[in-house]
């Protein structure tokens, strides 16, 4: 089994409760953010020596939720400072970006890292479309076209042009091409049936996050496998990534206390301002083709918000506890979901650095030895 040390890079010191998205930066000291970047990058670099197989980050805009509007910047540091871990960008939000620029930056990271890029091609969460003024109703068609264009840009040695629905480039020949051939592994989200189809068709790693319970995650994975078989391939555990928040402490009680405090900040401060903006996009666009999918997304978020730490552990939504409990919870995910990849958010909300660091030590010394061979 492989583990992604995923860093959301949150802003942990927001004062008060943000009531709208985009969130004002009033009172935010960028010198403090300078220290945060240093600390977060060190955690990610160190994670390689703590038994994590991948180092991951992603893209978010305009809020304290994540200080990473362009994860490729962080990935380029990791490519340079680490030796063996995969650099998992999970991911660039393709519909918001210039796909040729993504192809180029991803290729540079793959080359700089010696062929260690995992290339996340994500659609993003609904409100992010406002940030770059992209029509949410075009999110899926943009994702499809951008994906094909990027693969073409990576794999075609001879210059070519592209005349598409959303993108027109009369002449393309990116330098350099990625080291990994035919191209780096692609990772996409397949949390619902709408997206599973395209992920399976692309033979990408499927990612599933915000798990409400094991049964619903299992259904999403089984659906993906069925669709993949229709496209002539059989996904293995290495094709299935499950995302979880994690807290490992010396005892179960300690871990639960840390997680409860960190999640309170996560839900009440980091997630809160996005709710009304998400609602706006879901109500006024065709971000999800079926209205029930949009409702499910909101319902899942509300369900997760309303649960205690104990209930979340029981449901399989988070991993939390002392080392022994965490090993059990990881084995349960492996056995019940058949996933070979875990995307672990180690810094949850405003979880203190020393708690994160202790969790990393416990992972290295007492968890990884028990689960790496699964």
């Amino acid at each position, binding site marked *: 089994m492989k583990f992604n040390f995923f860093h959301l890079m949150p802003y942990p010191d927001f004062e008060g409760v943000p*009531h709208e998205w985009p969130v*004002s930066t*009033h009172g935010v000291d960028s010198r403090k953010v300078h220290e945060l970047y240093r600390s977060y990058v060190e955690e990610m670099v160190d994670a390689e020596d703590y038994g994590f197989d991948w180092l991951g980050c992603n893209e978010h805009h305009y809020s304290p939720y994540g200080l990473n509007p362009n994860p490729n910047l962080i990935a380029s540091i990791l490519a340079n400072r680490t030796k063996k871990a995969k650099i998992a960008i999970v991911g660039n939000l393709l519909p918001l970006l210039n796909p040729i620029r993504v192809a180029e930056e991803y290729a540079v990271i793959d080359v700089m890292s010696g062929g260690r890029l995992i290339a996340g091609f994500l659609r993003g969460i609904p409100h992010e*479309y*406002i940030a770059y*003024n*992209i*029509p*949410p*109703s*075009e999110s899926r068609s943009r994702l499809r076209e951008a994906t094909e264009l990027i693969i073409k840009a990576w794999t075609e040695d001879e210059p070519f042009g592209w005349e598409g629905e959303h993108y027109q480039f009369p002449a393309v020949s990116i330098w350099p091409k990625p080291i990994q051939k035919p191209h780096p592994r692609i990772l996409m989200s397949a949390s619902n049936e709408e997206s599973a189809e395209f992920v399976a068709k692309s033979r990408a790693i499927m990612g599933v996050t915000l798990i409400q319970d094991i049964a619903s995650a299992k259904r999403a994975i089984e659906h993906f496998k069925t669709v993949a078989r229709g496209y002539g391939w059989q996904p293995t555990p290495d094709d299935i990534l499950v995302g979880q928040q994690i807290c490992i402490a010396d005892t179960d009680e300690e871990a639960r206390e840390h997680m409860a405090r960190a999640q309170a900040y996560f839900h009440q401060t980091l997630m809160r301002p996005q709710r009304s903006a998400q609602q*706006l*996009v879901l*109500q*006024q*666009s*065709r971000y999800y083709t079926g209205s029930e999918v949009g409702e499910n997304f909101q319902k899942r978020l509300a369900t997760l918000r309303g649960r205690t730490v104990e209930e979340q552990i029981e449901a399989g939504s988070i991993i939390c506890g002392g080392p022994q409990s965490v090993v059990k919870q990881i084995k349960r995910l492996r056995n019940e979901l058949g996933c070979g990849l875990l995307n672990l958010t180690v810094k949850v909300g405003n979880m203190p650095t020393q708690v994160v660091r202790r969790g990393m030590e416990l992972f290295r010394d007492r968890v990884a030895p028990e689960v790496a061979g699964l």
Partner: protein
Amino acid sequence: MSFELKQAELSAGRISYHVGGSGKPVLHLHPAGGVTMSRPLQELTKTHQVFAPVAPGFDGTGPIASITALSDYVGLVAEFAGRLVGDRFDVIGSSFGSWVALWLAARHPKMVDHLILEVPAGFRFGGKGGLPVDPDERMKALYAHPERLEAPGKPAEIMAANRQTYERLIGGVMVDEELSARLASIEAVTLILLGTEDPVVPPEAGAHLKRHIPASQRVFVYDAAHSIAIDQPERVFRLWSAFLERGPGFVLNQGAAA
């Protein structure tokens, strides 16, 4: 669609107003220079019924003795709106008109549905901003593109009277602290429009309003001085019309479906 100039009898006296178009009512409150039938305002009459009262003493109208301060004029506007415009309507204010519109929305939160504040006056923090006295500097402050002025300027005596009335109504206030304290009570969804080349309204004013009006959004109109509707009529109308139609959802790009 053209405007008609009419008069209304209110408790304090007679007031002139322009009215044009049909559709959902919009109250337009003019700047210190008086009423200008800008292109956006004329365009708006295709979809809305626009009421544009003339503050007594402006544009050659006679003063009303009891209207001596801004708060008196706000009361007059509220009465005018209640009688002629309706129980609930949208409001667009420009500069001085935005100041009046803010008071209206603060005093009568249920009256105002969508509120658009163009280059809002009333918040000259640190004495920044304001109209230059020198005529050339004043022209530059008002227009980034004076060549886009379509109507000839108003006669000097009208402009002088407008200026005098404006000064009398605002009473030398640089920062309206009382209004500032009431911004949080504004219930209307609010759009604040600022010109990137506007030296009259300092950027701090827009930031202050954005921070304190609960449901507000702020947009900078590029390459526009204080008279943003003259400098960038298409951009301003696009913003007006999207905001009046979709409220806070105007930020959502609707793509080909639009």
